[in-house]
């Protein structure tokens, strides 16, 4: 995995709360057997009209959204299905971070494992960001903080090990495999009756 340290980008705002992973990538696109190319289908039902043409009103189809790498979203982003296709689609489209006051558990975990930063901020910060689409935000994972164009720095929580892996481009599986001796000991101690 590529390391993530610090980047700066303008934001794009999707203010709706409870944006579920069925909206991020509808189920009919989950028949793929690879991770690539899902960006085209990101938010498909909001982004395209029934005839397949882009809906000019949807924010991702507007010129001001072009090149934005930070998605600012309403409360409880990423709820619903565990599909990892959701962060895959966001990343493939070009997003590198999602900012909200609440991010659903499974989506958050999936994002961290793919280098998409799930950033949880307090209500006033979120409000400011929602009201200022296009704001240039500096995301600094080393210092675990955002810097808003106003100069205000906002720290955000992030699981320590995930941060370590992201900063150093480490894959978690390598670490997990280094624990195989402990896993073997655990298995040896099992009565064997847990699963028959």
């Amino acid at each position, binding site marked *: 995995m590529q390391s993530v340290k610090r980047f700066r980008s303008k934001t794009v705002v999707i203010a*709706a709360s409870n944006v579920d992973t069925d909206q991020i990538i509808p189920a009919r696109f*989950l028949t793929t057997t690879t991770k690539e190319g899902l960006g085209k289908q990101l938010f498909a039902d909001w982004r395209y009209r029934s005839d397949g043409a882009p809906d000019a009103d949807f924010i991702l189809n507007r010129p001001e959204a072009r090149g934005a790498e930070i998605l600012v979203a*309403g409360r*409880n982003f990423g709820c619903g299905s565990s599909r*990892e296709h959701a962060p895959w689609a966001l990343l493939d489209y070009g997003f590198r971070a999602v900012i909200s006051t*609440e991010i659903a558990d*499974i989506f958050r975990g999936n994002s961290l494992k793919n280098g998409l930063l799930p950033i949880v901020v307090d209500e006033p910060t979120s409000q400011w960001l929602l009201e200022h689409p296009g704001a240039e935000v500096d995301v600094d994972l080393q210092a675990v903080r955002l810097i808003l164009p106003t100069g205000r720095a906002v720290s955000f929580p992030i699981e320590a090990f995930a941060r370590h892996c992201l900063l150093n481009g480490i894959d978690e599986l390598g670490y997990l495999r280094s624990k195989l001796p402990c896993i073997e000991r655990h298995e040896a101690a099992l*009565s064997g009756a847990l699963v028959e």
Partner: protein
Amino acid sequence: MSGRTLFDKVWAAHEVVAETSDTPAVLYIDLHLIHEVTSPQAFSLLQSLGLPVRRPERTLATMDHSTPTTTEQVFGNVPIKVDAAAKQVRQLERNAAEFGIELFGMRDARRGIVHVISPELGCTQPGMTIVCGDSHTSTHGAFGALAFGIGTTEVGHVLATQSLLQRKPKSFAVNVNGKLRQGVTAKDLILSIIGRIGVSGGTGHVFEYQGPAIRGLSMDERMTVCNMSIEAGARAGMIAPDEITFDYLKDTPRAPKGRDWDAALARWRTLNSDLDAKFDASVDIDATEIEPMITYGTNPGMAVPIGGAIPDTIGDAGFDKALRYMGFHNGEGMLGKPVNVVFIGSCTNGRLEDLQAAARILKGRKVAPGVHLLIVPGSQQIKLKAEASGLGEIFRAAGADWRESGCSMCLGMNGDTVGAGQYSISTSNRNFEGRQGVGARTLLVSPLTAAASAVTGKITDPRELI
């Protein structure tokens, strides 16, 4: 020291390496369930690293999400209509063969929705850790297992190491007192719980459902409750095992037998929260007050009693958007609204008792003209039992479309979809925009309410027809 919760006990028994401030715990996984949609990329990872599946005997695969439900496509010579789905099915067959994993393939009599077949086979057992690349893995918590959904990267981790890196979630007691009234089901209970807690109220937590109303539920009903824990944002939902659990498991094919059964039972009886256990959060619900419930919006928390009205506002920007999508207005009553499609099935309500409930209403009645009633059993075993006990005949006589098992219209991946703008009364678990098809409008209900609404062609309180 205060007592420990059921969740604490199951967690501790599986912690291979304890968590520290710098590193998450390594949690051992007893049972890993696999399906065709969220596994291909995980198997590709193993292939690219040249790794085997570490514990194929703790891994079980089925196909359910994108599989067809018409008998001709499952058992006849008609090929699977959706090409990409056919490709996923073939890929899972290849991966299972290559990695030595047991697969319940397309024509296997044990095939079905992953969260339905594992309990019915007796693979799901109290005190286990169970994961699957599917958020409704919480279903298995009904047996006192710690069961949760994971993403595809984690599916790869479990395939490779039989373990996961996890931070320990917090605990949340959901106390349900009283008793459900006649015509009020486990589905109505969980919809009202989600309404109370909110769709993100459980984030970061594992629920434990407790109290007399929970004790009074059958295993099928407990699974319905635990299944939708994720719809309140919770990682998992658990119910301490009791005699009802043990009775259910005793004759399942893969439950321990003989002396092993006795040993397992002794262990399982210790699986409950200590009386002085402390939970990080809790809520008290009175089951006696619960009415049959129905959703009116685009998430499962937007639910009202069926005789009630859509609220004027819920103080949420999404509310107006949801009503526009649904074609509803605030303040409107729910009863009597027209119905186009009725879906009875899914891992929430596709079990035998759900079909029996629907049959109670459908027996001797006909589906209203113009309404499509689709009944999809949760597994082939359930299909066989439903046929043997005469339910199949009741469904056919009522004019229902009675299919082979699978996820089907719960998520519409296999071509079983609801048309744009159509109203679907569904026993599934998600009423998200487009969940059952582009532009489809889903209203979540119990199997009783679904069957009653299919008969009248409009939203109906099932107590009128029982």
